[in-house]
């Protein structure tokens, strides 16, 4: 982990002219389209809302994965920092933390607003936010992995194809966690499973991402 690199990413995001907000805008548009497709029946909508918010969150994240490394790779920043620091794992971990701060955290903070639109109780909103927060490391880790594996090559669909099998468990336990939160609270099985998925995701996908980056500079 390298604070300078994380700081650089945050400054870049702040100066990008609102690029980091695109994820939130997509998130809002996805939810609006879902509501239009499902019909404006508030009772059935609030039952579907946690699943819809999870889907919107994952879709928005999937769209942003392609940009994690492609910019730094094409303009040579990645090669330079690799030469300068020599430690790929350090770069990947810094990227991982920076990606969470600049892309997933703004999205996470947008969840309560989306939940207000569906008229959800505070319990459901809290359960949803906790579930997403616990799942974020896994989502970011597999996103970094897919981004490092493709490096901006190929279509964006390939990143979705690589990530989806690994993110399906997160989706399963994430939506289940929201369902059981009101009854069993934070210490129930789905939250623990989500936490475990995040740990495994970090342990597997981050070294794999650094191996992929090493390969692209061989």
């Amino acid at each position, binding site marked *: 982990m390298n604070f300078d690199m994380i700081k650089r990413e945050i400054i870049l995001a702040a100066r990008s002219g609102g690029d980091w907000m695109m994820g939130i805008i997509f998130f809002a548009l996805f939810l609006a389209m879902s509501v239009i497709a499902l019909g404006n029946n508030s009772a059935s909508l609030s039952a579907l809302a946690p699943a819809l918010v999870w889907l919107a969150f994952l879709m928005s994240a999937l769209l942003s994965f392609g940009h994690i490394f492609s910019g730094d790779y094409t303009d040579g920043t990645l090669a330079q920092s690799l030469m300068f620091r020599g430690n790929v794992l350090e770069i990947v971990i810094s990227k991982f933390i920076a990606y969470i701060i600049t892309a997933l955290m703004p999205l996470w903070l947008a969840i309560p607003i989306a939940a207000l639109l569906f008229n959800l109780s505070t319990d459901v909103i809290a359960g949803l936010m906790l579930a997403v927060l616990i799942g974020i490391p896994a989502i970011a880790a597999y996103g970094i992995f897919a981004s490092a594996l493709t490096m901006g090559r190929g279509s964006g669909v390939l990143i979705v194809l*690589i990530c989806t099998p690994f993110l399906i468990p997160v989706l399963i336990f994430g939506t289940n966690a929201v369902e059981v939160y009101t009854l069993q609270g934070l210490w129930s099985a789905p939250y623990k499973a989500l936490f475990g998925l995040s740990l495994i995701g970090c342990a597997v996908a981050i070294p794999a991402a650094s191996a992929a980056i090493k390969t692209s500079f061989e």
Partner: protein
Amino acid sequence: MLTYLANPERFLRFARIARPVFGVLAIISLGYGLWLSLIGSPEDYQQGDSVRLMYIHVPAAWSALMAYTALASASFVSFVWRHPLADIAAKAFAVPGMAFTFLCLVTGSLWGKPIWNTWWQWDGRMTSVLILFFIYLAYLSVGSLVADRKKAARYASILAMVGFINIPIIKFSVEWWNSLHQPATISNIGAPGLPPEMLWPLLTMVLGFTAFFAWASISTIQRTILIEKSARQTVKSGAKITLDTL
């Protein structure tokens, strides 16, 4: 055994014998197995003739998992020791593996229509086999993303290993999800409870699928080695011709 075969020349010598052996074994056991399963075995008292799909479906599912295990092991060898033959082998395992997965999904769906009255059920096993199919698809797409064969193989091997670690997790989570969202489905054709006149064709078909998998992957590896060898020789003889004309 594996270190012996790791040498491409020795592998070619092995393939010259093993390929026809596995090919003949596959033809005999698949032919005999098909005859047994289509004609020589009894109907199921509940499912009637639909049970005969099981003799293709179950071996296909097993072979799909076996092929992925072989693919992940070859990827591990290729990643750690950078052995070119392991790259070729991993890629050769992927295509039959994906075909088995597809066959498994199609026969399962064909069987589901008369028995469950639906082409598709979001049952735990079916969902995880579908995800396995997507992992195969991702593996093959990543393997053809870069022109440089060595780099492409390395990317693909990383993906194969991450996928291998994740398959049990996906399987577990899909079953968890299924038990929450659906009542139990009648998907367990318990293999130990199978009568011998049904078990025998099943085992013959499993042998046939395994022999076919071995034949297909050995042929692909052999062909890839020969193509690379002839490419090298063309370069050599090409250089010689230009020298001679000079």
